[in-house]
């Protein structure tokens, strides 16, 4: 894989939490590469290190040893300020609990990364409304998160994650709080954004609907990669026209 095409590269990545009676090795020597535009699922039982690995890839926590590169930058070498700037410009997050800012409307939540990047209001709205049109959120722009269903909140969270056109979107159990219809719709939406915008998605998930639709499935057991399989295109639903 050429360096230009690699979005994520980890090398012997470890995360050890000092804990009594003995330290917890949440991630153990993970080495992997993820290419631009991939739709990757990381699966595994609870405690297998999925979320910790996702946090390491997102620069939300620092590794005990090893390296993480995102969009060509070594996260372990970045200052906290540079790491925050990288998160803003190159990484989008989707969380299980949606985690929208409760005081901002759906549109304001989605445009928040652009606000931080200093885009003019008109340009922010144009970009967000374009995505809202793609994900079926028209007419709900001014609602506060508390007035949206779980599925709608997660759509806004996804819009927020992709609006800044990050190199990488990290989604931690994005369908866990959604019913099957909302989960299906959300996955379709993310596949659409993957195809249309070339966004690279990495999921941490238990959900078989997600693992089945992923291009690549990485299985983690006890913090280590047990298997890393590129899945057959036939198993995935056809791309939207």
């Amino acid at each position, binding site marked *: 894989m050429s360096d230009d*095409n690699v979005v994520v590269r980890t090398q012997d990545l470890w995360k050890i939490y000092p804990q009594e009676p003995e330290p917890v090795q949440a991630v153990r020597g993970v080495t992997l590469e993820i*290419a*631009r*535009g*991939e739709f990757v699922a990381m699966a595994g039982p609870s405690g297998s290190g999925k*979320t*910790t690995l996702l*946090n390491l890839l*997102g620069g*939300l*926590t620092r590794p005990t040893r090893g390296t993480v590169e995102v969009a060509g930058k070594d996260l372990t070498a970045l200052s*906290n*300020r540079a790491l*925050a*700037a990288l*998160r*803003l*410009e190159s990484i989008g*997050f989707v*969380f*299980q*609990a949606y*985690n*929208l*800012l*409760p*005081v*901002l409307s759906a549109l304001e939540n989605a445009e*928040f*990364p*652009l*606000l*931080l*990047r*200093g*885009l003019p209001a008109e340009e922010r709205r144009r*970009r967000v409304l374009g995505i809202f049109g793609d994900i079926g959120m028209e007419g709900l722009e001014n609602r506060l998160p508390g007035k949206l269903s779980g599925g709608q909140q997660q759509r806004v969270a996804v819009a*927020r994650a992709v609006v*800044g*056109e990050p190199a990488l979107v990290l989604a*931690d*159990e994005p369908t*866990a709080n959604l019913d099957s219809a909302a989960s299906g719709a959300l996955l379709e939406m993310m596949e659409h954004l*993957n*195809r*249309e*915008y*070339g966004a690279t998605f990495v999921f941490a998930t238990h959900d078989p609907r997600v693992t089945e639709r992923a*291009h*690549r499935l990485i299985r983690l057991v006890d913090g280590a990669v047990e298997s890393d399989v*590129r899945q057959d*295109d036939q198993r995935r639903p056809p791309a939207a026209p």
Partner: protein
Amino acid sequence: MTNAAVRPRDSLPKTLRPGSRAWIFFLLSVRNVLRNARRSLLTAAAMTFGLAVLLWIRALTDGAHESWVTGAVRIGTGHVAIQAPGFARSGRLTDRLSAAQLDTAEAALRAPDVAPLIRAIAPRLEVSGLASSAEAAVPARIEAVDPAAEAVFSSLPASTVGGSFLAPGDRLAAYVGVGLARRLALGVGSRMVLTAQGASGDITGQLVRVVGTFQSGVPEIDEGLVYVPIATARAWLGTPAAATTLAVLLRSSYATERVARAVRRRLPSGIAVLAWQEAAPELASAVKIDDWSGYAFLAILYVIVALAILNAVLMSVLNRRREFGVLQALGLTARETGWVVFTEGVVLSAASGILGIVIGLSVTWLLWRHGMDFTALMGSGDITFSGALVSPVIVPVFRVQQVLFCLAATLVIGVVASLYPARAAGRIDVAEAMKFDR
């Protein structure tokens, strides 16, 4: 496996410098303050109440001090006393101002930066002497005054209990305290002899007739003070056109330092300028002690208010750990996350401060603008303090400086109380904060 055919991307600008995000923090802070209306109101209520009480207490304290000072200086040597150096210590006629010095001093008081602050100017010739009648002789403080000027300056003309105050043109007249009149068995129309050391050093006497008696309520004044016309005294004591003091009464005690400084700057070193704090140091100390004991009480009040704010903001931070985690995941630095919380505290403090000022001033003005009557607390007897009668009615004094001080105190409390929660918000473990509660 990647998607090759993707939409062409518009180029997005680089991240702005963090400083330009201040208004975003402000927006978030205001929205958060409004979102948690009940918490914000409770916190704001503590601050508003604290500030309103602070303003009320300061207005009354300043009013009480103004009353003490005004009472003392109107009987005494004014807010500012212009004298010959050494008179304050010696009290002797040899330490007097000449006619030329008085002219110089009066010219300094007419300066445009000083004149508007002055309510009255009164020349006085003061000596210690003996007051005697056919019945007795007692030591007395003899103050020779300009009747017209003194009628405006002194509060004693309003304390007349018999006869009347000195009138312009009076010659051999005296206005005496009731205690002194009693001791000398004098009434209005009675004659008495005043004896003192004249300018030449000789003891000299002057016959005067009592035209009025006064009761100030201050025993040492009522039993020992005699007012005579200054023209009479100048002739009697051999000090033509001289005075021992040019007493200056100001419109507000708070202008004392300013006027004293301005006049001092314009006068030669042979003329002394004393602020009331120097002329009445015991009163100045009392005011200072009262001020600081008030501040100590208010400091305690404000520590309690600060703890209430700290508690409210900190609880809010602890309840919003995930929110702060999200902000950092989205690209804010830890310090910027702290700024959001800090700005919230400052917004809340500023809003409470303004509300507190409005309420504090309004309530004090509406209920007590004509004075708060403490007669019931003082009992029936007069209370004197540092040579002045303390009025049982305290009229609050409002000053811009005082309002700004109170507002600043509230803001400082708000800022200080927000620092720790801001620091706590910036130091959260983002990964931990983002964990889903199962």
